[in-house]
């Protein structure tokens, strides 16, 4: 198991890149390596990270989902309003996840059955879901939740912050699904060669759709964590997240052309982005220069990874 994770990390991720960034940062700022700060990074990465896990499924099939940020907003405000109506936390979470999965499934169906390229479908959904969340809330945040709900974003379990736990479980579960289930193997096959998958009797329509369902589901899970963490559900949440989420997946080595990559790489990709953001705050780089530094680091980290082989 341990060995297996290690291999996977080395194989997919830009492991060296992340290590490099960590080394530089800890040299510049000793407090970077403090346990609290590392926890901090993980906690901050959790929302994007959870969403990126679902996105990995979609990208593995050579698809893309631009609507995750908007799904996050819509499910987030619905989640917040259900909590306000006094629903029990379990029901709130279940309903939120179901809504996310539903929107994802719709994305999938229009893509597969309607044979519209996923970029366009999810671009449409991105706009529609954002509009709906504004309409639902009238643009005002829905805030102040009960302690039970806030536990999901701010609580700790055995000393580990709950968002980190949720993130970790999502990654582990996704890795297991991708590796050990029919669904996972089929998604790789579809992404690698859709024609061959079809001729092997795989129901491409169903499995591709499932990838979008999962992506919608994780976006909703991200929404639960974010809403609880911020103590507010906002219709403006998650604007621009699609780029961060896709970036985490792609930096983590999953190919936009499908069939290659995995969720361990995505974990590293998300951590790399989170670490860079954290590090620049710690080093107090001013905002204009942050943009330059961030861009350079991303490219260099991935280039560094090239040294590794091939």
């Amino acid at each position: 198991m341990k060995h297996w994770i290690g291999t996977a990390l080395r194989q997919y991720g830009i492991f060296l890149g992340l290590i490099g960034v960590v080394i530089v940062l800890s040299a510049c700022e000793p407090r970077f390596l403090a346990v609290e700060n590392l926890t901090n990074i993980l906690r901050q990465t959790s929302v994007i990270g959870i969403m990126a896990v679902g996105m990995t499924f979609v990208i593995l099939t050579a698809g893309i989902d631009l609507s995750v940020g908007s799904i996050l907003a819509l499910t987030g405000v619905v989640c917040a309003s259900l909590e306000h109506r006094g629903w029990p936390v379990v029901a709130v979470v279940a309903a939120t996840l179901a809504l996310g999965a539903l929107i994802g499934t719709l994305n999938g169906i229009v893509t597969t059955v309607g044979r519209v390229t996923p970029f366009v479908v999810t671009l449409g959904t991105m706009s529609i879901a954002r509009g709906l969340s504004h309409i639902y809330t009238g643009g005002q945040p829905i805030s102040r939740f009960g302690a039970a709900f806030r536990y999901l974003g701010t609580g700790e379990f055995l000393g580990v912050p709950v968002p980190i736990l949720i993130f970790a479980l999502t990654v582990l579960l996704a890795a297991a699904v991708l590796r050990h289930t029919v669904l996972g193997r089929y998604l790789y096959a579809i992404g690698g060669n859709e024609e061959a998958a079809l001729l092997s009797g795989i129901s491409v329509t169903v499995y591709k759709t499932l990838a979008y369902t999962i992506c919608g589901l994780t976006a909703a899970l991200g929404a639960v964590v974010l809403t609880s963490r911020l103590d507010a559900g906002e219709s403006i949440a998650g604007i621009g997240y699609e780029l961060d989420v896709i970036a985490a997946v792609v930096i983590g080595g999953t190919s936009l052309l499908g069939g290659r990559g995995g969720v361990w790489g995505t974990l590293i990709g998300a951590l790399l982005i989170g670490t860079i953001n954290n590090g620049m705050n710690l080093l107090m780089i001013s905002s204009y220069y942050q943009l330059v530094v961030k861009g350079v680091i991303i490219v260099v980290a991935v280039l560094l990874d090239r040294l590794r082989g091939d």
Partner: protein
Amino acid sequence: QRAAQDDGRIVIGMTVPSLTHPFFVHLRDNVVDEAQQLDVEIIVVDAEDVAAKQMSIVEDFIARRVDGVVISPIGADALVPAIEALNKASIPVVTVDRKVSGGQVLVHVGADNVEGGRAAARFIVDQLAGKGRVIELEGTPGASPAIDRKAGFHAVIDATDIEVIASQTANFQRANGQSVMENLLQVHRDFQAVYAANDEMMLGAVEAMEANKVDAAQVVTVGYDAIPDALSYIRAGRLDASVEQYPGRQAREALRMLVAHLRTGAPPETDEVYIKPVVISAANLDEAEDKGVTRAQ
């Protein structure tokens, strides 16, 4: 006389920089409400923080032959051609909140972001008695309110013994405010005040401080925009203050003057209405616009 054209109903086009900022949502809500009272038709279009998009929206208004335009320009310079186009089409235009640097504007109703920044700084200087360390959360890099609010803030604070120990951007977003503050807390524990260029970032920062066991009561916290959420934080004692620019009042005033002009043909008495930004704290909470009430359906 323009209003007499077509079906006789006055149609107003309005465009704001971004309806993803609660400030402009509130402004929109008020203006829509005011339009109902004035019995005019209004459309409010979001320019998504892109100057070129705002210009296109104005051009569409001209093509639609609206009777008047209310605009809160994204950039003072980049929207001048849009204003000039309106002038050319003889459609009267008023600006709200932010100004433009050219063209003919019927009237400008606004508050000054630079002045608001100064007010926030003065509040901190008062509370800290002129000494201490402050953390600043900036808005989206390059955005004009981010630049103006920062400029005003520094104009005052730099003249005192108060030291700005960290200035980082959180892109006007709550989630970013939270994570940037969490990060800063890793290296800074000794500070007495936090200033954020909008309430969204400030509220995120408050959440971060509370979660990290920083005693919020010991820290002077000042946000900007006085959104309802921020007011409720102030009421609960979790936030000290927020700068109020009365967007509702601004918008209503602007619309009233525009409609009056359209109905009577008379120019307004003044070409600039200036609303002074006020720092709202627990002491003067009722001076804030009650923003929950006028929410549009």
